[in-house]
C-alpha cells in the first residue's frame, strides 16, 4: 500500500526537539483528526478518543527532548493511540460482557502490520475522491446515487430523466473504470467493499 506520510517529517521532528511550537502545531493538525478516528475503532465515545489523542500530543511535547522515534511518526502515533485506548478500556472495564470467545479473539487481532501500513481516513478519502473525479460527471452521479444512496436503477432513471438502460451502461462503465484505477493503487479490496456498501453517508457528504 502507498505510504502517505507528513512531508518533511524529519525536519519537523528536529524542530520539535528544539521546542518549536509551530512544528508541533503542524504535526498536530496533520494527524489529529485521523488519530481520533483511529481511536474510534477501540472506544465508542468521541470525547474519550479526543482525550487520549490530546494526552499523547501533550506527552510528545513534554518529552520532546528524550523521545526516540524509530519508525515513521505515523506508526508511532497510531501505536500510542491503540495503547492509550486499550488502557482506557482496562481502566473503565469493558461494557461488552456478552461477547463470545470468537468475538474477543477477532477483536484482538492486531499486529505491527496494523500501525505500519494503516491507511488513514484522509488518505483513503483522497484516493477515492481522485478515482471518482476521473469519472465523467453523469457516470459519477449515477454511481453515487446507486452505491451510496442506495437508489435502484429505476429510481435513478426517473430522477435523472433517462432510460434504465442508460443507467445500466453508466454503472457498468463506472465499475470497469474503478476496478482498473484502484488496482493501480493496490486497493482491490477497497473496490470490493465499495460495491458491497449501500450507505456510507458521512464519507460522501463532501462529494455530494
Amino acid at each position, binding site marked *: 500500500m502507498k505510504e502517505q506520510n507528513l512531508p518533511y517529517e524529519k525536519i519537523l521532528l528536529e524542530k520539535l526537539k528544539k521546542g518549536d511550537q509551530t512544528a508541533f502545531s503542524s504535526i*498536530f493538525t496533520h494527524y489529529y483528526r485521523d488519530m*481520533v478516528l483511529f481511536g474510534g475503532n477501540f472506544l*465508542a465515545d468521541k470525547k474519550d478518543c479526543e482525550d487520549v489523542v490530546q494526552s499523547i500530543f501533550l506527552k510528545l511535547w513534554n518529552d520532546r527532548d528524550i523521545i526516540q522515534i524509530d519508525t515513521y511518526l505515523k506508526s508511532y502515533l497510531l501505536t500510542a493511540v491503540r495503547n492509550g485506548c486499550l488502557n482506557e478500556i482496562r481502566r473503565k472495564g469493558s461494557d461488552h460482557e456478552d461477547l463470545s470467545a*470468537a468475538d474477543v479473539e477477532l477483536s484482538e*487481532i492486531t499486529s505491527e502490520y496494523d500501525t505500519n501500513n494503516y491507511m488513514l481516513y484522509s488518505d483513503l478519502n483522497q484516493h477515492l475522491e481522485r478515482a471518482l473525479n476521473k469519472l465523467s460527471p453523469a457516470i459519477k452521479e449515477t454511481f453515487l446515487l446507486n452505491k451510496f444512496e442506495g437508489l435502484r436503477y429505476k429510481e435513478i432513471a426517473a430522477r435523472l430523466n433517462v432510460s434504465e438502460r442508460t443507467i445500466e451502461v453508466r454503472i457498468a462503465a463506472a465499475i470497469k473504470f474503478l476496478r482498473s484505477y484502484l488496482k493501480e493503487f493496490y486497493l482491490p479490496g477497497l473496490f470490493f467493499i465499495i460495491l458491497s456498501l449501500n450507505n456510507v453517508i458521512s464519507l460522501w457528504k463532501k462529494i455530494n
Partner: protein
Amino acid sequence: MNTDNYIESLVIKYLSGHCTEEEKEALLSWIKESEDNRIQFEALRNIWQGLNPAFNPEEIDDQKALNSVLNKINKLHWTQHPVVVYWQRSAAILLLPLLLSLIYLLVSKEPENITQQEVFAPYGTFVEVNLPDNSKVWLNAGSSLKYPTRFTKGSRKVTLQGEAFFEVESDPENPFTVHTARVDVRATGTAFNVEAYPKDSMTSVTMVKGRIGMAINQQKRFDLFPGERASFNKNTLQCKIEKTDPYKWYAWKDGLMVFRDDPLEYVFKRVGQTFNVEIVVMDKEIANQPYRATFKQESLSEILRLLQLSAPIRYVNYNQETANELALKRRKVEVYKLKK
C-alpha cells in the same frame, strides 16, 4: 478468486456485525491459517474502518483541540515561575484596589493567558487555519501566520509572512487587520489574498469580496474594491492598482496553480516559492515568453517535466534529489533555451 470473494464477503459481514457464530469461527480459522491471511484481514478491516468512520470527521475540531493543548503547554510554563504566583497572591490579600486595577488591566489589555501562536505551512503544500473569530485563512507554502489564541475587544490582529487568502468573518466593531512587513490591510468582513514574501520586492493584495482599507508603511491609506489588485514595490515605493481576474491569484487555495499568458520567468518564480527551489531563467529571450497552464496538486518534478514538454527549455543542476530534499536546503535550478 471465488474463495477470495467468499472471504471478503465474510469479513464485511463480520465488520458490519452480521456474522453468525459459525461464520465467525470460520473466519477466525481462515485468519489463523497463514500470516498472509491475517494481513489480508487487517487490510480489509482497515479499509472498512476508513469507509465507516466511528465519528463524523467534520465534527472533529482539530483547531479547538490544538488551542486547548497549546494552552496546557503554555500554562505548564507559568507554574514554573512561582515568584509571579506569589506576587499575585500577596497582592490579592494585601491590596484589594491593586487587584481590581490588575483585573482591569488583564481584561482591557492582553490577558496573560492569551498566547500568540504561529502556524507554518510546509513547502509544497498549504494549510487551512480557523481563527478564534471563525475567520478562515489559507496559508500558502512556506508562509507563516501569527495570531492570538483569543482576540481582544476592538481589534483582530494577525501577522503574515508570505502568502495567505483570508475569508474574514463580518464584525464592523472589531476590524480585522493583517499586518505584513510593509503593508497593513484593514477589513471588516471580506475575502482577499495577500502576498508578502520577505524575499520579494513586491507586496500585493487582491480583492475578491467586500471592501478593505490599505495602509503602506503605516501611512498612505486608500480603499480597494473587488476585482482590484494593488502591488507595492518597496524599491520604487510605487503602488500600482489594476483590474484583474481575482481567482487567478488565489486559485492556489484550491490546489491549483493558474497561469494566463504570464511570462515564463514569473511561472518559475511562483513554482519556486511553492517548493522552496530557486529557479532562474538564464536566457533572457525566453524569460518573457507568455505561458498558459493550470497545474493541479502536481509535484515539483511533474510540473518541471510538463513545462519542459511545452516550452523549448532544458534544466541545469536539476535532478530527482532536488525534488526530494526541498526543505533541507534551498536548491538552485537554471533554465536555458533549448538549442536546436
